[in-house]
């Protein structure tokens, strides 16, 4: 298939920058206005993504009405960096892929903003929270709307900054501050790959625009194209918390729960998948890089699922699950043209049900005085009926219960994985079983009968402002797959040069059947251990099992980083500080000391005795005379 040349955006599309500008302006107002905006800040902050969403719908409708060949619209804005042969402009590209993201980001984003009005109601710094959220939305929209890699990178770092600010929103907690810093720094390691990839593009094509790179990458040698792909993968690993740069995501749960829902589940962490799909031409030119994507995806989906099984912190279970689900998306993206649309499909449905469950978890925490330990929950189904029902919808979606959202998107991936390689397929299958296990465990520990509440906790359902978003997202988790299944592959395929097949709503295959069985097995095992008749200890039992211990310690991701990077790094830093003081500065000061020592010695010649001065003078005169005489003779 030929790559699509975008058409120039005119008329309505020349205002596409408003999509980004509205939340950005709102963020600026909220962050600069000071206390004066405390009373209405959250309303302005909520209005901004809603406006963007409406705009997004308008553009989407316009694209829907167009011919397939004209659905990629390019809106150049202005010259950014022109130097030498480079001419990097700031421009937007609205096509089938980006508009899906725009709707997801602003749609789910708006709901989460609404939810936050209630969730953050008692926080004195709520206005600032909304400012940061708006900043995030603006940056994320820039990321998906950019028409070239460098502008994408601006959005990429912008969401990183917003994520940093929001994870560390409760900065007075040292753990939050540490987690925020860790997220940013680990992301920067990924950005290292991103930056070098963009540099390579500029060196190769003198341009970083998607159009030029896609057109030129075919002429690049395979090793270079593969390098480019691997570098982009490194970037994607950082942002999407894929192994080996996964360690920040679990700590990122220190942020307020709406942040976890919006940034660390629904949108930002999926940016890596977007990047890979967007760079499809590069991965086609460097097939080895695609294989690496598959490996990363597969490893992460198991890795995340493993962690999900061993956590008692409800948010960390969901975080592990997010990691794992993004692993699925990566896997799909790595498979190539047959997988791209499925990756995005799963990304969208995951956006619905994971945001739903995170917000649900927030609602639970709200009820339980911000306790996150599932061992202190139990019997919440009755106390929090709306939360329970919506959460259940998300649960059924994620495990792939028939006709729920995840059923369509995830099973397609598992199937495509089997077609690509039986190893990846098997791992994806196992992952589905494990997902069913740990999600059932979460549901049982949280909602099934058997109170293990701490003293003084009186669970109550959250206010309407929080439950309405839950209901909307819950509904989306139910019908999202049904609605999108027949349509999204056809919609996306032209934009990503994909070859994904559209499957019917009722579509039985052998693999599908096996998947169902595996999922059922996972649920059964979970009931066996955590069923309603089981007594769940309300403190985490000690264990000698190396497997459980490994899971509780995030499979030693942090321990590894600490041993390999942090401790040697600290040692090197300390050594270098000493080196700088002792050697570099030592030489400078030493030179000074030697000279002044020499001078003070030389000073003694000056003894103050007139007669010795006279002697020296005579001797000097004699020497000068002698030289003159000798010179004359010679």
């Amino acid at each position, binding site marked *: 298939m030929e790559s699509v040349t975008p058409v120039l955006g005119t008329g309505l599309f020349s205002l596409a920058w408003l999509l980004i500008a509205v939340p950005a302006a709102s963020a600026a107002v909220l962050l600069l206005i000071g206390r004066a905006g405390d009373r209405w800040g959250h309303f302005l902050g909520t209005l901004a993504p809603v406006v963007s969403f409406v705009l997004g719908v308008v553009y989407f409708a316009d694209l829907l009405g167009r011919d397939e060949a004209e659905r990629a619209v390019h809106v150049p804005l202005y010259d950014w960096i022109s130097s030498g042969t480079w001419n990097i402009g700031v421009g937007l590209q609205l096509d089938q892929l980006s508009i899906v993201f725009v709707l997801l980001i602003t749609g789910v984003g708006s709901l989460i903003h609404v939810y936050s009005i209630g969730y953050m109601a008692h926080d004195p710094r709520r206005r600032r929270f909304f400012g940061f959220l708006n900043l995030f939305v603006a940056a994320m929209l820039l990321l998906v709307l950019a028409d070239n890699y460098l502008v994408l990178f601006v959005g990429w770092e912008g969401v990183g900054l917003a994520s940093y600010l929001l994870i560390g929103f409760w900065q007075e907690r040292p753990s939050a501050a540490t987690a925020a810093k860790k997220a940013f720094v680990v992301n920067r390691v990924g950005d290292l790959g991103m930056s070098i990839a963009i540099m390579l593009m500029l060196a190769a094509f003198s341009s970083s625009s998607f159009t030029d790179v896609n057109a030129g990458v075919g002429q690049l040698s395979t090793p270079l194209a593969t390098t480019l792909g691997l570098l982009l993968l490194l970037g994607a690993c950082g942002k999407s918390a894929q192994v080996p740069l996964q360690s920040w995501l679990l700590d990122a749960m220190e942020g307020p729960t709406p942040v976890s829902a919006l940034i660390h589940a629904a949108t930002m962490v999926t940016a890596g998948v977007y990047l890979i799909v967007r760079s499809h031409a590069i991965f086609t030119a460097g097939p080895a890089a695609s294989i690496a994507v598959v490996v990363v995806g597969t490893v992460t989906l198991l890795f995340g699922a493993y962690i999900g099984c061993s956590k008692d912190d409800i948010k960390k279970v969901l975080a592990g699950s997010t990691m794992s689900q993004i692993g699925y998306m990566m896997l799909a993206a790595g498979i190539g043209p047959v997988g791209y649309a499925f990756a995005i499909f799963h990304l969208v449905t995951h956006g619905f049900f994971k945001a739903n469950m995170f917000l649900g978890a927030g609602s639970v925490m709200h009820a339980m005085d911000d306790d996150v330990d599932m061992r202190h929950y139990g019997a919440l189904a009755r106390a929090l009926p709306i939360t329970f029902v919506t959460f259940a919808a998300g649960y059924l979606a994620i495990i792939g219960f028939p006709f729920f959202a995840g059923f369509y998107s995830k099973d397609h991936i598992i199937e495509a994985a089997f077609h690509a390689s039986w190893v990846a397929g098997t791992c994806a299958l196992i992952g589905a079983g494990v997902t069913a296990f740990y999600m059932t465990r979460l549901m049982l520990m949280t909602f099934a009968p058997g109170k293990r509440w701490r003293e003084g906790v009186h669970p109550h359902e959250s206010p309407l402002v929080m439950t309405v978003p839950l209901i909307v997202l819950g509904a989306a988790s139910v019908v999202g797959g049904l609605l999108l299944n027949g349509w999204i592959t056809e919609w996306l395929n032209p934009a990503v040069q994909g070859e994904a097949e559209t499957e019917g709503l009722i579509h039985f295959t052998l693999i599908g059947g096996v998947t169902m069985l595996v999922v059922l097995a996972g649920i059964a095992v979970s009931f066996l251990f955590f069923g309603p008749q089981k007594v769940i200890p309300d403190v985490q039992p000690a264990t000698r099992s190396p497997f459980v211990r490994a899971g509780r310690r995030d499979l030693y991701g942090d321990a590894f980083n600490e041993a390999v990077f942090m401790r040697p790094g600290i040692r090197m830093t300390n050594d270098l500080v000493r080196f700088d003081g002792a050697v570099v500065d030592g030489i400078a000061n030493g030179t000074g000391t030697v000279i002044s020592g020499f001078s003070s010695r030389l*000073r003694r010649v*000056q*003894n*103050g*005795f*007139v*007669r010795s*001065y*006279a*002697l020296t003078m*005579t001797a000097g005169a004699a020497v000068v005379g002698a030289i003159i005489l000798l010179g004359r003779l010679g």
Partner: protein
Amino acid sequence: MTDHYIVLSAILFAIGTIGFMTRRNAIVAFMCVELMLNASNLALVAFSHKNGALDGQIAAFFVMVVAAAEVVVGLAIIVTIFRTRRSASIDDANLLKF
């Protein structure tokens, strides 16, 4: 003819130099300096005569003026030192140093 004057000048200068380096009495050392100055004056005049130019004689006048000024200042210093230290030995004073 002028050679004799030059030789005389050299001898006077040598006497002055040796005297200055060997004698401790400030007054004597001072007179040795004067001796050296006048030895150089003699040489200047002798050369001037030999070359038939007046430069050397003019220089000699300058030296005399400087020597006179020096005597005024130098003697004053010596007298002051003698007053404060009760000694005119130049080895007793070693203040001329850093």
